[in-house]
């Protein structure tokens, strides 16, 4: 019987130095943080990160020196606008960047997902992102003759996503009110590893009721890691909200001593140690919905 379950070690075994890694979610929402922390603790290096809608995932991998190149549209902790480690790495030139508009990233992922070399758009024309990323234009072959940006396809070796429910076959549910662009990132990836709040039997997915929360067919998924509370400190609503208190501590970890302290308390303690240090199961499950 098809069984895609893997553990964190199995997940890390599938990664390699220098690979292109895509990260789903959005800023402080539904980031696959348990997988990100595993990478941060590993010996992996020289990653090209495709994290268009970045949050503490990017900051953590910047702080641990994993990033060679970052492809992104923003990196934000939302309630705390700037991630300290992204900012420090970006300002010191620690990694190369390719900066994309939020919608352009969506379009480039869509091109990658469709196995096309590019998709035409106006987004980006007239701005500095075009030259920086070496993007080119294409002329409409129809009567309008308009010059458009050819948004280059974006593909990744492995994409990591956090979902609410999955079975061992790779059928998934994303129950949050906004699925973001995880579906496109998944289709633009050679391999997709999902971490899931709950690993359940297929029948328990109750697809008859939840069809609209099923982001893609199971053939898209290569591996399933059971990781309860695995999005923390980002939110996985409706299971739990964003941990603003933890993000505040994290946002304050810019100085070397503060980072050493954060690292000792929350990173060098393994995933079970992390969840305990972060307040434990009851605390995290009681985190309220964010207010904007």
């Amino acid at each position: 019987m098809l069984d895609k379950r893997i553990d964190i070690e199995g997940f890390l075994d599938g990664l390699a130095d220098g690979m292109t890694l895509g990260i789903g979610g959005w800023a402080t929402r539904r980031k696959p943080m348990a997988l990100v922390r595993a990478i941060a603790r590993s010996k992996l290096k020289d990653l090209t990160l495709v994290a268009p809608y970045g949050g503490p995932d990017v900051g953590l991998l910047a702080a641990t020196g994993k990033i060679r190149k970052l492809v992104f549209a923003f990196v934000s902790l939302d309630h705390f606008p700037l991630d300290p480690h992204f900012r420090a790495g970006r300002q010191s030139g620690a990694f190369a960047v390719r900066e994309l508009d939020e919608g352009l990233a969506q379009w480039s992922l869509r091109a990658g997902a469709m196995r096309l070399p590019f998709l035409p758009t106006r987004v980006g024309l007239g701005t500095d992102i075009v030259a920086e990323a070496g993007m080119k234009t294409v002329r409409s072959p129809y009567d309008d003759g308009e010059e458009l940006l050819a948004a280059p396809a974006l593909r990744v070796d492995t994409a990591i996503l956090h979902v609410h429910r999955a079975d061992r076959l790779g059928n998934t549910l994303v129950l949050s009110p906004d699925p973001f662009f995880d579906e496109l990132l998944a289709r633009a990836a050679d391999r997709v590893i999902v971490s899931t709040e709950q690993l359940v039997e297929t029948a328990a997915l109750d697809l008859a009721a939840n069809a609209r929360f099923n982001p893609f067919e199971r053939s898209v998924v290569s591996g399933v890691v059971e990781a309860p509370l695995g999005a923390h400190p980002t939110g996985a609503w409706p299971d739990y909200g964003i941990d603003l208190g933890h993000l505040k501590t994290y946002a304050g970890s810019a100085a070397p001593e503060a980072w050493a302290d954060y690292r000792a308390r929350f990173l060098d303690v393994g995933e079970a140690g992390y969840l305990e240090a972060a307040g434990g199961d009851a605390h995290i499950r009681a985190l309220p919905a964010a207010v904007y």
Partner: protein
Amino acid sequence: MSSDCTLAELCVAACAEAWRDDGEVLATGITVVPRLAAGLAKLTFNPALMMTDAEVFLVDEPVPVGPRGDYKIKPEGWMSYARTFDNIYGGKRHALVAPVQIDRYGQTNISTIGDRTAPKAALLGVRGYPGNSINHPNSYFIPSHDTRAFVAGEVDFVCSVGYNPARWPGGKRPPFLDLRLIVSNLAVMDFGGSEHAVRVRSLHPGVTFDAVQAATGFALQRPADIPVTPLPSAEQLHLIRTVLDPTGVRATVFKGDPPAARSPA
């Protein structure tokens, strides 16, 4: 009119004007003043406006800023991330956002200040500015009007397209480029000068054209008569204070929360 109106409240009312004649579009106001302004526009003169809870729902009444207490949002539709871009590409949106730099062309920057490879300041990233600026109307709120924000030459990293033919593909104006207002702590401006030059449209109470020009890194167009930016009406002040911002988040926008009516410099 109220004599104790604050500068923040004046700016909310001035920003609200951006949406007056827009009809049924999505009003997006990013940061406190623009967000309050979108709500004010909807509640006072453009009830057809759509707006979100700043997360995922369209709401049929503006969501107050700050702690909500018992307030429950009133969803009327879904505005997922994907749908947000579908709406943008259709052009039925007017965003009023707060860039860090703006230049004579209306090009703006929220990405990096200084050298691009090792910038003096890494900000958020371009976010959705490129796509917004080339697909639907945009206005800008700049709370600190000085030559670091209103720069000479071009902004350090052009995140949004402006009226700069040198950057347009083939020199041809993008068909949906439509920059509307710039509201600062000193004045309201638009792009109504010759060849879309930035023009002063009204001066906030107690501010002179010369003071605005001195705080701007490029030449502003000066109409013969420049009115004073109107204060919010008593109804508008009431809505701002009791409905849109009952906990007073707007008091944090400007240092010391100064009054709208300044003594002339």
